[in-house]
């Protein structure tokens, strides 16, 4: 059970942080040195084991520790820029990595010295991840990788990547995959910006041409890549759960504010649409609170997939409403310049950007169609559809 059992435990954690702060004055230390010291003190991700940035505390203890550091004005590790490292790579390395891998990778990952990206999706394998075709062939103590990945956030700033490859095309698709850590500075790694609907290039295409990866950078067993990748994706969904948001937090607040500030734009038809979406957003926000309350008492429910679906629909409908609300102004766009943002900033741009970017919310991190299947099969227990790819060797699958 993942709770901070009592206020006494929470107070112990707080005094531990305060003691650390007394010994490490963040107002005079270099931020990076401070973060390294915090990691070494086990106050980075406190639910990790001692020696790897944690103290083996319950997961819920993190919020207590983070709040205490934040209150002191201590530097943070800029989680937005390295979200993939923290949310996906780190838990995977913790679960499947060797001790040597854990010691090499986790500290610079947490401090933000080394940015991570994720080489999963391919042009021919998005929702059907197990169909991927990027080959890794054994050559002595190395593997040689050939293939192409796509939709890679942060590849242009990443030092390392988590990579799933096909190592045995003779067996059914879920069995012949192997998982690696890929050095993004290795010869043969080529990163090209992928310009998208908004005009900016938040993502990349990554070409892997004869990239050599030492076997020591393999995560998990040969042929066990699907299981490792599943663990990574589970962690991604946990990360989406996120923090509690206040009423009108997020996109609904942006639209509500525009409504309040611009009475001349209001129409009765848009009014009812806005109120419908306000109610939906509030109900979804409460459902998020409920999910967190369930987690806090150690009874996680299956509602997370539904929350992601709700979020995608809400952000699309609210951003569409906002463009219409703006009328003549909705015909304009703020800036089509090719830019390379480190994070998606829904509130820092204008309505047209939000409308276009939100289209991705029902595709990224599991399409709404795949999520509906997951709910139907894993939550409601409905039968799976007949599959054409189950017992067929990967090389014999139609593509």
């Amino acid at each position: 059970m993942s709770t901070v059992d009592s206020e006494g435990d929470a107070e112990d954690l707080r005094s531990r942080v305060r003691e650390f702060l007394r010994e490490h004055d963040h107002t005079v230390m270099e931020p990076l040195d401070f973060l390294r010291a915090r990691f070494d003190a086990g106050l980075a991700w406190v639910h990790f084991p001692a020696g790897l940035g944690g103290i083996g505390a319950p997961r819920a203890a993190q919020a207590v520790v983070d709040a205490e550091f934040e209150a002191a004005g201590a530097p943070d590790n800029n989680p937005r820029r390295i979200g993939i490292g923290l949310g996906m790579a780190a838990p995977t390395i913790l679960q499947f990595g060797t001790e040597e891998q854990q010691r090499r990778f986790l500290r610079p990952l947490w401090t933000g010295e080394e940015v991570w990206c994720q080489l999963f999706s391919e042009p021919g394998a998005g929702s059907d991840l197990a169909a991927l075709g990027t080959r890794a062939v054994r050559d002595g103590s190395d593997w040689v990788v050939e293939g192409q990945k796509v939709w890679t956030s942060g590849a242009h700033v990443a030092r390392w990547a988590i990579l799933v490859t096909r190592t045995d095309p003779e067996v059914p698709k879920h069995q012949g995959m192997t998982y690696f850590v890929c050095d993004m500075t290795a010869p043969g790694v080529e990163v090209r910006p992928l310009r998208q609907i908004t005009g900016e290039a938040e993502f990349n295409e990554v070409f892997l041409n004869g990239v050599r990866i030492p076997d020591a950078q393999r995560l998990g067993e040969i042929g066990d890549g699907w299981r490792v990748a599943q663990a990574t994706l589970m962690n991604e969904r946990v990360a989406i759960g996120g923090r509690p948001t206040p009423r009108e937090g997020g996109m609904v607040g942006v639209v509500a504010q525009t409504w309040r500030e611009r009475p001349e734009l209001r129409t009765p038809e848009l009014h009812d649409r806005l109120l419908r979406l306000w109610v939906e957003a509030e109900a979804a926000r409460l459902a998020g609170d409920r999910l967190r309350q369930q987690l806090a008492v150690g009874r996680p429910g299956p509602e997370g997939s539904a929350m992601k679906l709700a979020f995608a629909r809400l952000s699309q409908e609210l951003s569409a409403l906002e463009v219409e609300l703006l009328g003549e102004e909705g015909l304009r766009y703020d800036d089509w310049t090719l830019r390379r943002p480190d994070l998606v900033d829904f509130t820092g741009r204008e309505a047209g950007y939000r409308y276009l970017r939100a289209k991705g919310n029902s595709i990224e991190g599991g399409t709404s169609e795949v999520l509906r299947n997951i709910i139907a099969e894993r939550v409601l227990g409905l039968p799976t559809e007949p599959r054409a790819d189950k017992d067929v060797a990967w090389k014999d699958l139609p593509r």
Partner: protein
Amino acid sequence: MEGPPAMTGTPDLLYSDVETDLRASVRDLLTDHGDPAALLARVESGEPYDLKLWRTLAGDLGAAGLLVPESLGGQGASARETALVLEELGRGLAPVPFLGSAVLATCALLHTDTTQQPVAELLGRLASGAAIGCLAVPLSAMPGTGFPTGVRATAEGRLTGRIGTVADATVAETLVVPAAGPDGAGLYLVETRAAGVTVAEAVPLDLTRRLADVTLEDAPARRVAGQDTAAAAVRAALLAGAALLASEQLGLAQWCLDETVAYVKQRYQFGRPVGSFQAVKHRLAEVYLHLVSARAAARAAADTLARDDTDLPVTAAVAQAYCAPAAVHAAEECIQLHGGIGMTWEHPAHLYLKRAKADELALGTPAKHRRILAGLVDLPG
């Protein structure tokens, strides 16, 4: 520009262990009292309400007195437990006068001076199930839309007027009647057996919650609240009713989802279970998605009501604006995904659709609640 009012704290959205136990007791009782076929036979009979079930619910489980303090003969529980009972009653579509008696009439009386002997006595009898009461307002009445003026009272406490579509009035012994008296608004108790009182059953869309048109012709009454108290009591009762009805809608939707999932798993077409078709799965996943949010919205309303939180008008409006359409959607999908059998009289799906649609109109439609909300959260039209 202002923005929505600040909340006083995150509501507790979970079910406590006590609530979970209570759920099990109510569900067991309802299961013992008959299946959907028996329900169908009952609503077409001369005794559409199951008063034996009602007495057991009230007597053995104390369900009717959950909101009533122990000093007045009730359980001294809260709106959270009451909501839970409504969830189960909605799930089983139990034909009992819980909403009219244990929620609307009881809440109205609890907001009067309960030291008055007739009020205290009536509350005790309502709590134990010895008597059934009902608040004499149309079921469609909306919280926050002014005091009803259809009935006039004389200085001697005699009432004349008509109130249409009153829920649960057909089995009530005592009506709690809002009326305009010589000194302004008042709340009166009227015995349905008294001379000058006519309770004429209407043909209801929802066969499991009966409606009646109440006519009063110089009927004797006892005033239990005057100006201010009476208006506040009616407002509070309707607001509590709206907040709690969301839980009934939640339970109803849950039954529709569970029943439909079970059906599409065992029904084969084109050589496959119907539930293996993606078109069917996605529709059920949508119903599930609505249920996840509806549960949070209904629990938030119940918890803010239980804590007498100032956020109640917002959470109640959100719960009604969200849960009412969610329940209708679940009931409509239940019928569609059952195919032909879903359109038949013999399958209970229609009873659920009828309740869901009637509940959507009850205590304010979603559109009306959205308009109320517009004022509450500073989003003017």
